[in-house]
């Protein structure tokens, strides 16, 4: 969607995506969000703004939360990319997803993939975060439904402190 005219020639890009080695051929400047959503049909990652303002598109690259709308696909070469579709195992929700579901950390669900990925990154880094640490980690993710109260509760529950 964000593609520009005069695209430079496409080159195959290899990275590990949700546990599988993938190779995609997209223009060098193709944004990761478009590669995920349009080329790979992984639509769990959401676009909520015109670039870099809402966090809905948060994915993990080598376990670090990144905005897929500001990341070129080429930057992912040789790295480990995880999206919301990659968290469940054999169709079972992971602990963060389960906590967001059970604690109503999601209402309309549109911010949820980004929120869950940001929380997942936090818990990998800090297994038992304090409330200020949770707030700091999710500061770039906007939610218009929950007032964030139950999102914080969900992250605490996922950390085993709910």
């Amino acid at each position, binding site marked *: *969607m*964000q*593609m*520009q*005219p005069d695209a430079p020639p496409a080159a195959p890009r290899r990275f590990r995506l949700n546990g599988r080695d993938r190779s995609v051929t997209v223009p060098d400047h193709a944004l990761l969000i478009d590669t995920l*959503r349009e080329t790979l*049909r*992984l*639509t*769990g*990652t*959401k*676009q*909520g*703004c*015109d670039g870099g*303002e*809402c966090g*809905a598109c948060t994915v993990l690259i080598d376990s670090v939360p990144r905005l897929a709308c500001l990341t070129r696909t080429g930057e992912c070469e040789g790295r480990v990319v995880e*999206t*919301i*579709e990659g*968290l*469940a195992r054999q169709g079972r*929700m992971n602990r963060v*997803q*389960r906590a*967001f*579901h*059970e604690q*109503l*950390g*999601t*209402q*309309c*669900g*549109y*911010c*949820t*993939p980004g929120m*869950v990925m940001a929380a997942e990154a936090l818990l990998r880094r800090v297994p038992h975060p304090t409330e200020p640490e949770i*707030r*700091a980690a*999710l*500061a*770039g*993710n*906007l*939610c*218009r*439904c*929950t*007032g*964030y*109260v*139950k*999102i*914080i509760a969900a992250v605490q529950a996922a950390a085993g402190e709910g």
Partner: protein
Amino acid sequence: MRNARAVVGQPTPLIDGIEKVTGQAVYTADLPAEGALVGRILRSKEAHGRIRRIDIEAARALPGVRAVITGADCPLTYGVLPIAMNEPVLAREVVRYRGEPLAAVAADDAVTAAAALALIAVEIDPLPACFTAAAARAPDAVALHADKPGNLEREVHHRFGDVEAGFAAADFIREHVYSCAEVAHAQMEPHAALASFDPERGQLLMQSTSQVPYYLHLMLARCLDLDPAAIRVVKPFIGGGFGARVEVLNFELITALLARASGGTVRMVLSREETFLTHRGRPETEIRLKLGITAAGRLTACAAEVVQRGGAYAGYGIVTILYAGALLQGLYDLPALRYDGYRVYANLPPCGAMRGHGAVDVRFAFEAALDALAAEAGLDPFALRRANLLAAPTETPNGLRVESYGLGTCLDWVEAASGWRARRGRLGPGRGLGMACSHYVSGAAKPIHWTGEPHAVVHLRLDFDGGITVLTGAADIGQGSSTVMAQAAAEVLGVPLARVRVIAADSALTPKDNGSYSSRVTFMVGNATIAAARALRERLVAAAAVLLDAPEAAVEDAGGQFHAGERVASFAEVTRAALAREGGAITAKGSFTCPEPFQGGKHRGGAVGATMGFSYAAQVVEVAVDAETGAITVEQVWVAQDCGFAINPLAVEGQIQGAVWMGMGQALSEETGYESGLALHASMLDYKVPTILDSPPIAVHVVESLDPNGPFGAKEASEGALAGFPPALAAAVADAVGLRMDRLPITPDRLLEALAQRARAGRLARALEVA
């Protein structure tokens, strides 16, 4: 209710929550549509002007462009109110705001679509434009609409009770002007639509980010001149609404027109900027409020003059200006009310309905005035509210029925939980507590389209598998309405929630529903679901009676089993017997209609504000004010809401928190501003919704007044608490720094300016004293 509270009243995660947390939920922009064309809209750069020429030939000739349309392709206007459908799908002859659609293209890909837009030549002769209500009402202002001289879309003059006598009897009167900035919903999902037109059959399939799929169906039929039977509207997952999507929006009709023009499938995904320009937010509002009380704190009279700047087209405007007057009543015992409302056109994106529709800004003024009067009269703000409680059942002077009323209990809880008595005024410099109350309707009692049908219809289907399918047109937009319907059906039928599935908002399958607005769904569709479940249960009992060889009256329906004396038949056995008896799959229907006495006063506009059940809320807000920077930190909120009965306490709590928090955004930071008609806020950076760093803990207490007409006693839960936040915040700021802020949002610069002004005034007074 038999077996009550087995399913309803239990905190229940959303039945579609797993899809949301795993990324499987399919929103409109996610819908698979291989080979769909990309739709894009060309928007006006003029705020007001006469269209001389729109030349689309070069765009049309561009390879890969499949359709280009302009206002010439759709002569019909649209709008949500049958009496005010004055909006063109694409501008015709005149453009009235910056961002108004002028033309649209469908192309093979986004690059081609963008290139095509750039090839469209537009010539517009500018006209003088009005950007404020005052400019629009000025005697020499150019009229936006020829039939509305003075740019007055609607004026309302309502009088109830003896207002003059009321003010004469008052010991304290406050008269003050309050103003509230325009705000927007900023739901996280940008607008999107996917339309497929089959030229062979002349049929349209429409999927869109709508809260009102039925209205969309009607408008598509109107604007494309199609037989409604040739249209199917399906609602995917929706990423929030808050009222942004309770009327049909231009991009939806444009997408459908493009699909027909190209004979294919068109996907339209608006940018965040375009989503802001599509707007329908809460209008900029000025309220001149006069309020009188006795020394004991009894309200004697209220006079309110309200001006709303509505933007370029009618939308819901008439309803908004009527709500603002009507909902001054229904919260307290207010014996006399004079209301003068003015809804004004301006050359800005059209306003519409937003959470707490019509009630929020006037409530700010009313509660702020009460807080000031309490201080003047030496009364505690809680005592002042308690002096004016209603006693249900009652009818207000403007014809609103109040059947259940838990405000007193709400006040008690927030007062105790916040430690009000011990802490207010004793928190130290720069810290304060404030409180306010609010209310909202549980569904507008009179539908916009009067068809003679019930207000809500639900079908329940039972087939060989013993599963219950709820078929409802109600649009779950994230608030959890599908979960409520599943709970209601499971409760009445005595089956586990897992046995119930919900199919919602597909016009080919589900009965029509008016939509998700005015918090009508739990109350109306919930009641219809109960009625449908009872009807189904009756048919099962009849089958069980045959199976158990007992009279129907002797059959007991106990939690998914049927008993007659010692004999027992399982749900599965009874289902089989019922299917055999009735000749296959059973569909039971339930409906709900708000009876005539609830449909409002007989005065003109009296239907607006009328509802079967008001929710009530009270809240206390604690703030810390930094006098150096003007920054206000909300430390904590305590809120209690009478929602009648919490069918899903988990969701009710989440809704109340979300509503309070949205009120916080309006109170502190949110504002849709314009410069010569250019939107200054049309991004998630410039439109400042609170982040998680700005957001306080919100302690919620649910009060259950068990409304006599609500489903299981339930009323609305998602709007009522919003309006209380801004005045509670302003009262807390007054407690903290002694300044009564009368203009929303209370941004740091405004607060700093007020503090500086006070300091100047103080210096001046001291200087005069010395002199």
